[in-house]
């Protein structure tokens, strides 16, 4: 295992070392000490690495991740795993705004709470939040799944496209064109798989499903009041 203490090394040195594994992996396990909320830690990885960040991280931690398994043993700032393509990012604490924004693939697990706009414009990622999510979560979500084991804030799924949303707790309000939908067997199966992959012990039958009513997919004068 390679250890980077960010009180001594720069984030640039760490990220370069992670990127250097892309063409040929010579070091698969990395440990990051004393991150102290620094931004852009472990972003742009393109290799099947295991990265453990021992503390709090700032903005865009594990941004655009491909293949790697990144664990943050603390809280993270804005945009954790933004635009992730594949791999797994696990946050042991809470995540700030825009967690998993625009992410195309992979699995993002937040063991605490997530702030506003969790999963905004998500494009295929699966996100599992053990706690609550803030307002406007999954805004314009295009593809993938968002699982919320706690409560969801205002305007959940506003202007939603095709993301599957599962919430166990309460939803303060639904956004435009987001509706509650029937929980059929295939959804129970999908949710069971998501919870298992995230290592979360919850009963899938206790969740409600939300999705797009698909009424705003084409701009029509009849829908003007919804805009």
């Amino acid at each position, binding site marked *: 295992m390679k250890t980077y203490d960010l009180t001594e090394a720069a*984030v*640039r040195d760490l*990220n*370069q070392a992670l*990127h250097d594994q892309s063409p040929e992996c010579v070091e698969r396990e990395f440990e990051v000490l004393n991150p102290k909320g620094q*931004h*852009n830690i472990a*972003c*742009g990885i*393109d290799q099947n690495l295991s990265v453990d960040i021992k503390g709090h991280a*700032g*903005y*865009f931690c594990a*941004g*655009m991740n*491909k293949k790697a398994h990144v664990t943050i043993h603390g809280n993270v700032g*804005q*945009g954790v795993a*933004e*635009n992730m*393509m594949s791999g797994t990012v696990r946050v042991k604490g809470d995540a700030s*705004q*825009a967690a998993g*924004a*625009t992410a*195309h693939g992979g699995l993002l697990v937040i063991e605490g709470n997530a702030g506003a*706009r969790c999963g*905004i*414009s998500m*494009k*295929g990622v699966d996100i599992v939040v053990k706690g609550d999510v803030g307002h406007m979560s999954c*805004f*314009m979500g*295009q*593809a993938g799944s968002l699982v919320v084991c706690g409560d969801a804030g205002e305007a959940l799924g506003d*202007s939603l*496209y*095709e993301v599957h949303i599962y919430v166990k707790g309460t939803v303060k309000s639904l956004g435009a064109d987001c509706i509650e939908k029937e929980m059929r067997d295939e959804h129970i199966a999908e949710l069971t798989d998501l919870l298992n992959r995230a290592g979360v012990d919850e009963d899938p039958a206790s969740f409600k499903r939300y999705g797009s009513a698909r009424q705003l*997919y*084409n*701009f029509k*004068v009849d829908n*003007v009041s919804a805009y």
Partner: protein
Amino acid sequence: MSNDSNYNGGLRESATFDRTTMDEIRRAADTGIYDIRGFGAKRKLPHFDDLLFLGASMSRYPLEGYREKCNTSVVLGDRFAKKPITLDIPITIAGMSFGALSANAKEALGRGASEVGTSTTTGDGGMTPEERGQSKKLVYQYLPSRYGMNPDDLRKADAIEVVLGQGAKPGGGGMLLGQKITDRVAQMRTLPKGIDQRSACRHPDWTGPDDLAIKILELREITDWQVPIYIKVGATRTYYDVKLAVKAGADVIVVDGMQGGTAATQDVFIEHVGIPTLAAIPQAVQALQEMGMHRKVQLIVSGGIRNGADVAKCMALGADAVAIGTAALIALGCNDPKYDEEFKKIGSAAGFYDDYQEGKDPAGISTQDPELMKRLDPVKAGHRLANYLRVLTLEAQTLARACGKNDLRNLEPEDLVALTVESAAMARVPLAGTSWVPGQGF
């Protein structure tokens, strides 16, 4: 008016409620929805035609037009990037998306730009292999929608342009209507075929200039600080926006005036939001100069640039390069009179066509219809664009030599005068024949 069959000497048309205005009122009453169209602002605005060059005579020494060198190359992005871009000519191709444009049109833009040693730019919807393959220097736009955004393409780019806005619609997002969403466009944007694709007006994971500074650092980290990062803004509060962009860490700033084109935006937005390109340049240059960053952070200007005189005037006002969009499409064949009959069949006419959002472009440019697309030969169209870019460059060089400049970037505001009080005030150059610069306190 004498050629107008409806003209009758006893009738007087209202200047306020002219026929175009009346037509729009009737259209609104018929449909209940605002007009969406492409192209750029069509209203008359103070523009580069309102400026003139002061050629050399006794007090200035000209260069020989056909013999003495006038450099046109420019280096962009040498503030932080390990690999700045060198352009042979200071005229680049602005961002236009695959989706709004056909794959053949995107390929033609790449071919034309590469033939003369300049760059082209992706757009909303990601990078196509045709475009990357034919563009020796390709700028990858980082847009709020992040359609098609991925780290592999990011690393293939020669520069990254973080788009905060565009001149046709500063403060607005975009919409690619469902009729242009083919299987390929839908797949690139991760959305179902045939639905409208909304492009957000704000980035999803940052909200202000301090956040943007961190975002730029993230992009630099992901690309290992190899390529320049541009920030593009629509021209509005340009002085402040440029200062914040420099502070956020931009290598290059792109300012797009309100004459800049769009693929599909509300007409009211195109015509009533933003400031003219002419007014934006001096604000941007002032901001850079006050920060000691003029020529260190390069300035690219776009919005209504049509000929070499426009290029030279932009550079005289302090730009390092310009970008063209609408003019490049016209060079490819957009609005070509040879398709006039077909334009009429869809309710338009050659020279007036702006319904890019409908995807029925007879010229095969702003369409995804496979049959219409075939009409645009990317090799021939690319060569036409290259020819046009050469003419712009030759014209700009001619004017620069006449002002005694051996480099386009040596042109300066002192080489210009204005024809109108408005343009003098905006461009901050004297009214022709006077030493009066309106608003400068004398």
